[in-house]
């Protein structure tokens, strides 16, 4: 009764092992490699571009996740209020999440276009800038541009999941808190946040995982440029392995992402999820 198990074993567990193994070889496309030990990792550690990619990935993940969380929580709380056409709004909000990322990334590429950017046009008309902004031409501007696109894509997921969590909090708790004289901030800090922590932990783990390993947005919008300033680990490993042909090196980069992901999972699991009283159980 487990055909799924078999398929997962062949196409998931085996590739994971194979990927790790490839990371220790000098395999190229069309040529089997030999064991070279830690050479790949040693080379990558001394490689400027890889270091930059690592920095970019951490920066990208951190900034995007924090903003996604803040805005997502805010949007969730707005949607949780009494609102006409609530379900309609909720449906519309999810749209950025369900359309193919590669295709919405194209729209962002066009929005960031150096000559005909709509953002530049609007700012010009408002008189805020006197020259078109070259969004994807300068390293830091490009970084923030792709981060903005990532946030745009990620907010709906965070918001809708947190909304599901908010809906389970009984309004009577807020009323009780208000009667006891709690300010709105206190109600948020001492009622909403503690009750929401478990779901925040799960949602943010997912969000961090998918941001860290993001590929499509970067590949479509900047391809890692300008001057490798937006390369993430995933895009770099694609470039080295598929475009460049060094499967071993690419696999090493991909494998190097695993410890970070494990750290993120463990952090959210042990740091945020253990308090059982939040789910109505006894504290252990």
């Amino acid at each position: 009764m487990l055909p799924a198990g078999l398929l997962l074993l062949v196409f998931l567990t085996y590739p994971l092992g194979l990927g790790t193994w490839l990371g220790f070889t000098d395999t190229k496309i069309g040529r089997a490699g030999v064991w070279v030990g830690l050479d790949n990792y040693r080379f990558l550690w001394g490689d400027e571009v890889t270091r930059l990619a690592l920095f970019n990935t951490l920066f990208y993940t951190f900034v995007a996740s924090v903003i996604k969380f803040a805005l997502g929580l805010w949007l969730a709380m707005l949607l949780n209020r009494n609102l006409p056409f609530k379900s309609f709004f909720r449906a519309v909000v999810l749209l950025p999440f369900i359309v193919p990322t590669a295709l919405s990334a194209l729209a962002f590429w066009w929005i960031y276009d150096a000559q005909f950017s709509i953002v530049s046009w609007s700012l010009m008309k408002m008189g805020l800038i006197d020259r078109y902004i070259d969004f994807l031409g300068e390293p830091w501007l490009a970084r923030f541009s792709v981060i903005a696109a990532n946030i745009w894509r990620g907010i709906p997921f965070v918001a809708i999941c947190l909304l599901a969590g908010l809906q389970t909090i009984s309004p009577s708790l807020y009323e009780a808190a208000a009667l006891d004289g709690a300010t709105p901030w206190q109600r948020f800090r001492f009622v909403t946040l503690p009750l929401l922590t478990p779901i925040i932990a799960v949602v943010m783990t997912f969000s961090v995982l998918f941001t860290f390993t993001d590929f499509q947005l970067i590949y479509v919008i900047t391809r890692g440029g300008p001057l490798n300033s937006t390369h993430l680990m995933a895009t770099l490993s694609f470039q080295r392995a598929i475009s460049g042909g060094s499967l071993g090196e690419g696999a090493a980069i991909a494998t190097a992402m695993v410890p970070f992901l494990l750290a993120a999972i463990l952090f959210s699991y042990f740091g945020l999820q253990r308090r059982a009283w939040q789910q109505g159980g006894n504290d252990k």
Partner: protein
Amino acid sequence: MSQTEKASSEGMTYLESLPRRVVTLYVPIAIFLFVLLFPFYWMVITSFKPDAELLTRDGNPFWVVAPTLAHFEKLLFHTPYPEWMWNTIVVSVVSTFFSLAASVFAAYAIERLRFKGSKQTGLAIFLAYLVPPSILFIPLAAIVFKLGLFDTKWALILTYPTFLIPFCTWLLMGYFRSIPFELEECALIDGATRWQILVKIILPLAVPGLISAGIFAFTLSWNEFIYALTFVSSSEVKTVPVGVVTELVEGDVYHWGALMAGALLGSLPVAIMYSFFVEYYVSGMTGAVKE
């Protein structure tokens, strides 16, 4: 009764004044919606604009003066776009059905056949879902090469389940868990086999779960990018996202109109599907996270 229900659903909103509601609720919501929807609006507007209007800084870019279907015409009759569309449909539908069938068995086995280590298997399935494609695509590419599947639809149909099965199984496990044991026990006493129980009792009760999982799986495989980019290289087998990104972007002159038209048409199927099944979709997503 209805009075009190209404009051409790509104909570303390009656304490708020209207201007306050406008500032703290309606204005932020409007801004959120504007930002979240603007790229779509921009996609639509661009795809109907003639090139002359696209490549000028004069006039109002937010509106289109002389709408044209030229970009759609170019897309549908002068590029392999319809072929990509067909490929995407085939790959998504086949891999979705395949994964769904496999997941039903897996989820049922984990939840109800109490074998040793079923808990661990369940956890392993969940962890498998967390393994991102950007780590797996290189070794998978090596395997696809070895199996001689490179550049065929089968490469995609067989690799998509690696992320679909864990997700669907996880989702269905939750649904199966909510079906009471007693129903199965009754059936067992009446002489039903495991197979009959699964087909006649569990599956009909789990239809909402199946729909959620199916829709989600379909969307995920429709949106898949990195595998399709890596495992397929000739134009005849490309999927829509990959085809649009790799083949419509040529040289230094970008055909924004055609690009946006392609993006729009490629997004429409999932958007339409989504609009029919919003509730299932949301419950699938939040259900997967809540567990």
